[in-house]
């Protein structure tokens, strides 16, 4: 291998590593706030990518049907909750729920059916995609997790896997078995010290850095970001000072949903996405997150970058064993983690 090949593989690895890093951040965010290992993040990412790809191809994505369905279920839950609390005197909460869960999905549905056959600028397509996909994340929290927020991490994990199962099945119904890809956001190519560098790679790098900066500012400079950090440190303490479990859970899911939707839209021009491809991509982000012990953001991002590089280089040396190598990496990583935390008591199960 000469340096040129190495450079080429590095660019490739850093680009996919950047996507994995965003997924890892989303996973850490959700886990630290809710104790949920959100396996279905991969499906949301794919929904984002495929929705954008279909819009670009002038086809109506079935995404909004799912949004309508999830919204209806959420509304039903809110209505039952309101009825149980005898809140019939005030119709306000129910009205807001109706706007959020019924009217908004319907609007999105009409908007997307209007936009699909038209050739809109890519930025507009992306905005529409985000508006259609991101709200699904808090809806999934509302339906699947909020009723059992106090359950053990093990139960939450099994629910997360069940949601992954259901979303994969829905993905097949919504998008069919074939893969889709989209036009690059920035269709340019450069030469960097003799290496080809695509505009899309630069877009991925810059967006990743910007998103990370935004997250950093959010967690350090805003009240709601600090509230989320408080929940991550001590759930009960946060609740006592008025930060609710349910609202922080929904917020964490929304943020994670936004991050992975961006991931999907960034990666769909690079590789074609299929309905079931998100899981494996998300898992590579998970390996990065495990390197960060599921709680540390910088380590998780660095770990995910490492996974991307390892994947790129192993595809050169042993292309057919690429996935085997990447997923076996989890063992030494876990060994390192377990040695690093050997003398600490783990009482996560206690919550």
């Amino acid at each position, binding site marked *: 291998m000469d340096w040129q090949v190495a450079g080429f593989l590095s660019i490739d690895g850093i680009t996919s590593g950047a996507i994995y890093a965003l997924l890892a951040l989303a996973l850490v965010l959700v886990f630290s706030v809710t104790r949920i290992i959100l396996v279905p993040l991969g499906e949301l990412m794919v929904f984002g990518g495929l929705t954008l790809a279909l819009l670009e191809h002038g086809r109506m994505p079935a995404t909004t049907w799912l949004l309508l369905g999830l919204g209806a279920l959420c509304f039903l839950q809110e209505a039952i909750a309101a009825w149980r609390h005898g809140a019939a005197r005030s119709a306000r909460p129910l009205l807001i729920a109706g706007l959020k869960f019924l009217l908004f999905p319907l609007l999105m549905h009409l908007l997307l059916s209007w936009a699909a056959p038209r050739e809109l600028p890519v930025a507009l397509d992306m905005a529409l995609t985000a508006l259609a996909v991101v709200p699904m994340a808090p809806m999934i929290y509302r339906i699947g997790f909020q009723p059992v927020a106090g359950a053990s991490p093990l139960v939450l994990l099994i629910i997360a896997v069940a949601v992954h199962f*259901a979303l994969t099945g829905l993905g*097949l119904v919504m998008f069919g*078995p074939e893969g889709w890809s989209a036009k690059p956001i920035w269709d340019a190519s450069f030469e960097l010290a003799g290496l080809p560098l695509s505009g899309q790679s630069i877009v991925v790098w810059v967006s990743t850095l910007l998103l990370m900066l935004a997250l950093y500012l959010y967690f350090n400079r805003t009240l709601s970001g600090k509230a989320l950090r408080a929940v991550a440190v001590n759930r009960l303490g946060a609740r006592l000072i008025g930060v609710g479990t349910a609202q922080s859970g929904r917020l964490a899911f929304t943020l994670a949903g936004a991050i992975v939707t961006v991931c999907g839209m960034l990666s769909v021009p690079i590789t074609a996405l299929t309905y079931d491809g998100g899981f494996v991509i998300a898992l590579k982000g998970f390996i990065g997150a495990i390197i960060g012990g599921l709680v540390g953001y910088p380590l998780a991002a660095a770990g995910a970058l490492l996974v991307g590089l390892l994947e790129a280089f192993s595809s050169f040396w042993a292309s057919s064993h690429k996935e085997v190598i990447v997923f076996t990496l989890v063992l030494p990583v876990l060994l390192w983690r377990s040695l690093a935390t050997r003398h600490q008591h783990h009482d996560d199960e206690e919550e």
Partner: protein
Amino acid sequence: MANVNRKLLLAFVAVVGLLPLLPVPDFWISLLNYIGLASLVALGLVLLTGVGGLTSFGQAAFVGIGAYSTAYLSTAHALSPWLGLLLGLAITVTAVLIIGAVTLSMSGHYLALATIAWALALYYLFGTLGILGYHDGLSGIPALELLGVSLADGRAMYCLIWLLVLLAVFAARNLLDSRPGRAIRALKGRGGMAEAMGVNTVWLKMVVFVLAAVLACLSGWLYAHLQRTVSPSSFGLNYGIEYLFMAVIGGVGHVWGAILGATVFTLAKEFLRGQLPALLRLEVSIEMIVFGVLMVLLLQYARNGLWPLLRRFFPAAPPVRVPAEAPALPKRDKPAAGEPLLSVRALRKEFGGLTAVDNVDFELRAGEIVGLIGPNGAGKSTTFNMITGVQTATSGSVHFRGEQLTGLSARQIVRRGIGRTFQHVQLLPEMSALENVALGAHLRGDYRPQGGVLASILRLNRAEEAKLLREAARQLERVGLKDCMHQEAGSLALGQQRLLEIARALCTDPTLLLLDEPAAGLRYREKQALAELLRSLKAEGMSVLIVEHDMDFVMNLTDRLVVMEFGRKIAEGSPDEVQRNPAVLEAYLGAVEEAS
């Protein structure tokens, strides 16, 4: 009552046994074969997830190892399937030991994540290895032969599969009703209780993980010789997830739930794949959506699965029987009254800049009841935790009967004769009082402390069980809970639960009993009963160290008091002396007076 259950069990075994002789269509026999294979894997997950509190999404990978090992040896090298089984088991156990070693000392979800990655890695490996036939897999696997009879026929395989399923169910039931089984059931307990009873929790987690993987491997071996061809697609991660779903549907905490879950799941899948798409004219299969949604609903509304719903129609299982006579367990030598027992020297604990315990010294002699008291935040519990090995001291030492305790784990400390109770009661609420107490005798069995698993499975442990249960019953009687022996621990009142914890601690055959706020939350009468019990234990020669808030309780009970405030010892002496001590009056009693 017990008879009805026994008859039902016999009827079930008879139906299972007679089925292949009846003119049942081959399609149903084949379906039952797959149900049996899935039951084996689901049973392993019941042990791992429902009983042990861990989970694995990678069981399909162990099934794959079992299937591919025998497929490879019997096709490429024409070796006996039995060698294939051995190879499969060897690879499975090796893999489990490696995965377990890197994950089991950390919290539960790491094992689950590791098994997801492991399942994917192995799935891709099956598809990329030339000797395993890439994505096409291996075919032409010979049929099994047993005692000269060929098992090429589906009905013949049915007999072997269901024989093994029933054997596995009975093995699992035997294991759970045994000393190591109770320790495994205690893995889900909190706050290091199991370790404080002498259970090596990491090792026992490994044991259940091995058992679950071995059952999966066995299922794969049978699958290869039933199907006569293997390919990677049967061992993907989705199958691993489906096995877990089966266990959850059936009832993840119940041995029979495995068979129920495997049956319901397999039939439902058959319907969703076969009939439903034709019925609704669907172009794509919707089984994943249905199972995913069903699982979410089940985990939200009926987390214990279907078995408990079904179980209601049968009479309750008879309680564990306590033998009237059994040889007494060996006891350790007890020190003579007045001999120095516990000596705490300059014990110190710092949390960052905060000194929680500041060079505390005190002594306890055999036959004494000593109280460690002080206002909130005085450092009593930290001192207690350092003596019991839950926290490590920054400096200083604790000696017990002349031996240094500092640096020993909770498990090593109980072995030396220190029994303890917990500030927040740590019982296994669904187990009977008797079984909870028997857990205390974990180190006093006939087998190695963490061993005896195989003997329990084979039911060779009856003598051990008789002795342990007899001892547990004796200790329950000693604390006055004889009548509650067969009740679920979770159904007892708090006062009874605290007494139960003392009985469990007594079952460890302690020289010294450490009680962490035993009177907290008790009513007046319950406190009186507790004090009565402690006095009678003292009369029998027991030494006791009590950490306590309740002044009345300790004043009337203890021989000596050690008073702490802000991490320091401020006084020591008889209750009378301490009550007159001006420092104590100001620090402790004064504060109490003002508060009230």
